[in-house]
């Protein structure tokens, strides 16, 4: 086993990608000094980003990487997830230093909790990175469940009443939901084991093995199993009506963690769902899972639209906007044509970028205003000019204003809806998007351009917290104009992986 370990560069890269956060978590446990643990986390997350970027050319060239006898399996779909996780992770670690530092100065967290925060941060990155690289669907499930456990600890960090309530609900709902997903996984495994008599249990649960055999699965069993999977991973991915934990958890977590939860974790769960969508499409054709994805997505959009309209809390509004965008991605995958899936995968990245920017800037804003209420937060542009400007950009981007990146992917997704002749679904999507545009826009304008309620010093908080936001804003602008060549190929390859199921090849 260890002879193959160093046989190729990419296997070394994958292993060190996974080991980096673990090692840094251990170092933090040992070192404990504030400055040192901050630097360790930044170094580890930047190493993760660099390793992720180095993996990219290998995946672009070879399409798939399979190491350790197929224990780890990476294709373009995994690569998209790895890039998203490592990018948001890196920026969140930069932002954490300033944000958590200020909470530390305000005595909201003490040294012990800070150590716990950075340990949790690293372990959170590790568990999320484990999801896209594991081929064995059982291990993928274990990794997703582990993300729940780690993020519960991060959400309850402040141990306020609200955060305890949020983490309790999150723990219960996500665990019950994921146990349903495990039922589904076992059904798929059973379907596989019935077909394949020469069965060895190590590979029977591999995704690659299942996709190969999927054509021979019992169709009724696959339908049954996919419903379990959809409810299970859908709970974790924030699809309505299983979304009830999400606004609480995302609004009570520390802001950098909210960014990771909204921007990345939801996508990790959706990635799990996609993998089974592919198996099920190979087995019984894509219509069944496509319809279900469209229905759940539309419900999510509707609930998000209503909740954003009546929302009073900034971070809850952002959380509901995440439900909206997960719904949008799900609908658009459900449209089942190249354009739609391409748009959805592009949207995964775009949404992660924009939502992180919004959570970062709203974190600084609520630290300055000492409130999360929308009504009490007004005139940001006058009190914090730079942060206010970036919050405005993020807000305009998230509701789909033209020069920014989300507009691009939303346009692709909507036009795919019409060209795949899902007129009713597309009309509903447009209706809900318009409602969200108006209500989110109204809240946004009030927050940015209103009159500040009390006299406040005109000052932005923290130079270091500006850096990740500036990086994100420039990504938003660049991706709004064009998608870089390698990324384009990557998303195209990933789209083909999802779509091939449709042709039953």
């Amino acid at each position, binding site marked *: 086993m260890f002879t193959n370990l160093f046989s190729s560069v990419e296997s070394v890269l994958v292993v060190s990608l996974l080991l980096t956060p673990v090692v840094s978590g251990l170092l933090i446990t040992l070192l404990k000094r504030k400055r040192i643990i901050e630097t360790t986390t930044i170094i580890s997350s930047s190493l993760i980003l660099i390793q992720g970027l180095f993996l990219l050319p290998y995946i672009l060239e070879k399409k798939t990487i399979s190491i350790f006898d197929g224990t780890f399996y990476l294709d373009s779909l995994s690569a998209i997830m790895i890039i998203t996780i490592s990018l948001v992770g890196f920026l969140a670690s930069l932002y954490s230093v300033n944000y958590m530092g200020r909470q530390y100065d305000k005595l909201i967290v003490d040294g012990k909790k800070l150590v716990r925060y950075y340990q949790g941060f690293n372990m959170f990155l590790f568990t999320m990175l484990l999801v896209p690289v594991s081929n064995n669907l059982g291990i993928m499930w274990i990794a997703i*469940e582990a993300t729940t456990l780690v993020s519960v600890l991060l959400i309850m960090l402040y141990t306020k009443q*609200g955060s305890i*309530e949020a983490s309790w609900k999150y*723990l219960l709902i996500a665990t019950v939901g994921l146990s349903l997903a*495990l*039922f589904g996984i076992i059904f798929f495994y059973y379907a596989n084991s019935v077909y394949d008599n020469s069965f060895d249990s190590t590979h029977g649960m591999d995704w690659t093995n299942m996709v190969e055999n999927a054509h021979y699965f019992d169709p009724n069993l696959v339908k049954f199993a996919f419903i379990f999977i959809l409810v299970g991973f859908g709970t974790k991915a924030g699809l309505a009506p299983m979304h009830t934990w999400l606004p609480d958890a995302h609004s009570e977590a520390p802001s950098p963690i909210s960014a990771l939860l909204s921007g990345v974790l939801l996508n990790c769960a959706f990635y799990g769902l996609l993998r089974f969508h592919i198996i099920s499409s190979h087995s019984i054709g894509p219509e069944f899972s496509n319809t279900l994805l469209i229905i759940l997505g539309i419900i999510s959009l509707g609930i998000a639209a209503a909740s954003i309209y009546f929302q009073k809390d900034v971070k809850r509004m952002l959380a509901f906007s995440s439900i909206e965008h997960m719904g949008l991605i799900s609908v658009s995958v459900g449209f089942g044509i190249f354009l739609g899936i391409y748009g959805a995968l592009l949207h995964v990245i775009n949404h992660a970028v924009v939502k992180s920017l919004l959570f970062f800037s709203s974190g600084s804003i609520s630290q300055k205003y000492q409130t999360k209420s929308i009504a009490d937060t007004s005139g940001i542009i006058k009190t914090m000019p730079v942060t206010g400007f970036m919050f405005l950009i993020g807000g305009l981007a998230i509701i789909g204003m033209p020069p920014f990146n989300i507009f691009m992917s939303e346009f692709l997704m909507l036009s795919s809806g019409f060209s795949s002749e899902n007129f009713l679904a597309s009309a509903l999507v447009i209706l809900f998007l318009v409602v969200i545009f108006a209500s989110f826009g109204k809240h946004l304008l009030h927050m940015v351009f209103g009159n500040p309620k009390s006299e406040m010093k005109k000052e932005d908080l923290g130079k270091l917290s500006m850096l990740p936001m500036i990086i994100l804003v420039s990504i938003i602008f660049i991706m709004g104009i064009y998608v870089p060549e390698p990324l384009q190929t990557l998303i195209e390859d990933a789209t083909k992986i999802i779509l091939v199921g449709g042709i039953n090849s």
Partner: protein
Amino acid sequence: MSDLLLPTQIDLLHVSAVILLIATFGIVVRRGFSDWLHAYRYQTIILAGIVALIGFITSIWELYIVSALTLGIKAIIIPKVLFYVTKKLDSPIKLEMNPYVSLRISVIASALLVAMSYFMALQLPISSDETISVFLPVSFSLFFIGLFIIISRRKALSQIVGLLTIENGLFLFAVVVTHGFSLIIEIGLMADILVGVIVSSILLFRMSKTFDSIDIENLESLRDD
């Protein structure tokens, strides 16, 4: 495989399934925190026995290891952790005083859930292997009863016990249907459950410190109105 089973073995399967259900009802009918944990422990010990029995019938040696792990982690360590937590809780009353659904109705509801599970298991397109036909409905029952415990009780601890019951049902289902997937996944699952119990114990402590009780009625302030 089913035609190779001796009549005594089939009897053993049935008897163990019934005992497992009785132990599960032990959680439903009792009020005390420690009663639940005892009932959970019995349930898990029987589960470990069933796993070993299936291991014996199918002669898959890995299932013996899984059974031993179940016994060690889920029947010994997890109840110990939870007993420790209940002992340390501040609130003097360690009883479920008035659950949302009274215990009498809970028993009837659970019985209906068991009946529903048997009905559901018949609908499934899964082969009628003897072990499967005996244990599939039982595992569904465990799942539904666990879910019912979660939504019908007021104390946070009973919700943890409900989750653990769900987990046991899931585990039984996995072992029966797949005859054990690879050992590494089983170990990962166990580790996940163990960490989950520890995390929820920490939360329980925090809850009783912040709210002076582990009543989940306190946890209703976050909502959109």
